[in-house]
């Protein structure tokens, strides 16, 4: 039992994996339409946009930061892509500009956080407003269609696998590698544990911090292209607010908002879990208005469960201390 507890707490993503599995089983019992190949595939495709962004967000949150400008980066990147496509028709130019720009906007976030040491929440709140404004300014708040071939990114298949799922797989594997196999990955977690210790240990704190925001921008750029392809064109305000779904996925996946501990696997499963809730409510013919209520309650429940188990641990430690004091005799 102890052993089980240990694995369970050290691999926090197991909790969300089990919850997802349980929800999946429940849904397949309720509706025969759930456990079909096409439905599962469509769940994954739907989850791909948030899941890809969640990979980037995990890096940021692991350092103890947060990026709430992701939705605005998505909006601006897709605007830029659509605009360049309309004006030049050059795919290569549009792709390069969009991805490059996404990284750049992320880098700006990182630079601001590092240079001025303003808390990331406020920094990215400001850049969120700024980036959104830039996007509206760029497009004049128009809807811009993208060429039909673009749909390949959103709905096409390669070797029988939907392209968004392939892209998610690539981002997922790269993310895993970066976090678990490289120096950078270890530094990310170290900074989230204690930025001060990381500085005292002489780790390249500033570089790493800037880089995680760049990764956040990059994943958002990729997600932007998929979303644009799936929707078929730029709609004003696309992606705005998506960062909260992304953060929810990361938190559900067991990553601590204070940084230092968390996994990419958890975040991706978290994103899938959120889509499963939508999917399930849809299969149950629930009113579309309650979707957000349910997701909010689930998120709250996850955070409360986490908090309660943490407090139980803390109390246990205190009780041990009390016992230790009691056992040492007070007689001199």
């Amino acid at each position, binding site marked *: 039992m102890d052993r089980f507890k*240990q694995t369970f707490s*050290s691999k926090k993503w197991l909790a969300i994996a089990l919850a997802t599995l349980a929800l999946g089983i429940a849904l397949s019992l309720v509706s025969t339409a759930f456990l079909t190949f096409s439905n599962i595939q469509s769940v994954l495709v739907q989850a791909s946009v948030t899941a890809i962004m969640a990979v980037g967000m995990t890096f940021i949150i692991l350092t103890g930061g947060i990026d709430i400008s992701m939705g605005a980066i998505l909006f601006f990147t897709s605007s830029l892509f659509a605009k360049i496509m309309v004006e030049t028709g050059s795919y290569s130019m549009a792709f390069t500009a969009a991805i490059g720009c996404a990284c750049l906007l992320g880098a700006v976030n990182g630079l601001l956080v590092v240079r001025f040491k303003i808390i990331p929440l406020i920094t990215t709140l400001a850049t969120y407003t700024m980036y959104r404004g830039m996007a509206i300014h760029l497009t004049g708040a128009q809807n811009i269609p993208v060429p039909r071939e673009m749909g390949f990114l959103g709905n096409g298949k390669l070797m029988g696998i939907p392209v968004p799922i392939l892209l998610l797989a690539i981002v997922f594997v790269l993310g895993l590698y970066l976090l678990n*196999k*490289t*120096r*950078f990955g*270890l*530094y990310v*977690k*170290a900074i*989230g*544990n*204690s930025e001060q*210790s*990381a500085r*005292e*240990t*002489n*780790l390249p704190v500033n570089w790493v911090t800037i880089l995680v925001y760049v990764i956040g921008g990059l994943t958002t750029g990729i997600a932007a292209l998929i979303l644009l392809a799936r929707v078929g064109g730029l709609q004003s305000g696309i992606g705005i607010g998506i960062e909260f779904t992304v953060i929810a996925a990361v938190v559900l996946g067991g990553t601590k908002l204070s940084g*230092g*501990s968390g996994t990419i696997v958890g975040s991706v499963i978290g994103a899938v879990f959120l889509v499963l809730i939508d999917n399930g409510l849809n299969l149950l013919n629930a009113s579309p208005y309650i979707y957000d209520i349910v997701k909010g309650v689930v998120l709250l429940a996850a955070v409360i469960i986490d908090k309660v188990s943490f407090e139980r641990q803390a109390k246990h430690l*205190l*009780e041990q*201390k*009390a016992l*230790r*004091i*009691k056992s*040492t*005799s*007070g*007689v*001199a």
Partner: protein
Amino acid sequence: MPDLQAAPILSVKNLRKSFSGKTVVDDVSFDVYPGEIVALVGENGAGKSTTKNMLCGLLQPSSGEIFVAGAPVTQIKGLEHGISAVHQELSLFQSLSVAENMCITDLPGAKANVDWKQADRVAQEQLDFLGIEIDTKASVESLGAGKQQVVEIAKALLHADKLLILDEPTTSLTAPEREKLFVIMDRLREKGVAIIFISHFMDEVYRMSDKFIVLRDGKQVGNGYLKNVPRSKLEEMMVGRTIAESSIDIGIPTDVEAVRVQSLSSYDFHDVSFKVNKGEILGIAGLMGAGRTEVVESLFGIRKSEGEIYIHGQRVNKVSIAAMKKLGLCYVTEDRRGKGLFGIRPVKENISAADILRFVSRRIKGFGFRGESVEAQKIVKKMNVAIPHIDSQVNNLSGGNQQKVMLGRWLATQPNICILDEPTKGVDIGAKFDIHNMIAALAKSGVAVIIVSSDLPELLEVSHRITIMRTGHMVGEFQRDQFDSVKIISLAASSAFEQAH
């Protein structure tokens, strides 16, 4: 055994450090040979930390000579010279594994492809060297305090293995954990590693060390081989005087009970009982972590505890801050920046804060403040706070003036039981004198005073009675006419180990 044939690993002569003209450490001279354990002892504020920081290279000495392996250097470079320190606050990354923590500054393999197996091996070898079994893949937060300490030592030795500085390594350890640490220290000694061992615990110092250095008020007052010096002599060197000659008249306590605590227990202390009469000053002595602050915070209702508390003979059934304030208690915290003052608010508001209802204007119900400035002005004058204006920001004041503001805030509530936690921590001599006089005046006016202080001379000076806490227990008490600083220190600093023998 110390190898005296070899050149000393480190040798310092007349090391001095001053900050903006004020000398904090002076005249430190000693040699450390391979395989030697040197104890660095002294009371709180004697200059141990500054000395430690100079020895591990965090601070550059203002003057003096340093020789590393016989060669003169101007400043110690930890890594280069093989000197590392384990500080009192551990610097490990809690959620990372043992191996990750130990190797983080020097990861094996390529940048983009770390060789974790090799890292595990390096960590394992180092832990084997220390003779301790720890799973290198376990996360640090899953280990107890003792093992965390060992990981920190292993990490330090990985990069600098000639001289290790251990700063109070045993304060957070249990008795068995401590024994394991000592085994490791002995092992290091055998391997020729020298250790500078900073400790409050005299029995540990005598058990582990070959030599000693005593600091007092920033000056080295003695060094040499420990076996030639009895413990009482060493303690006398630390304290400087055996009996306090008080210059302050603290009056004579009445025999009317003001506060009585009976069998108070909590997570941090066990079965604590004491009482204080009106006009009496009770000093609570002890080391950091002995549970003193926790006891007084429980008395004031900040922490939960079990047991009985009587104020003016009446049992208090529901202990809360509000109830205690109503009964005339006040508590001045040791952490004035963190818990006491509102740093960016003016002095005026900081003074009125504890008794704010008195100033709420009644003319328009609950709106506006009256008399706040006048009252604040009065208190500033009474407390002798040197500030340009009562609207000055508290953050800009000196430590002494901040402390006076905080005291003034609570004295404005006209308490009849006053709890002061480290009332002169980080204040200058002048302010200290003022505060001591004020405490004496309080007692003479019939207020019961409880003072928690790590500054023993201070307690000797202003207390009628001193009670001593150690690891959550009250372990002794002295009346003013029996005050004996050596005995008090020795009571406070004996460890659980010593009791067992």
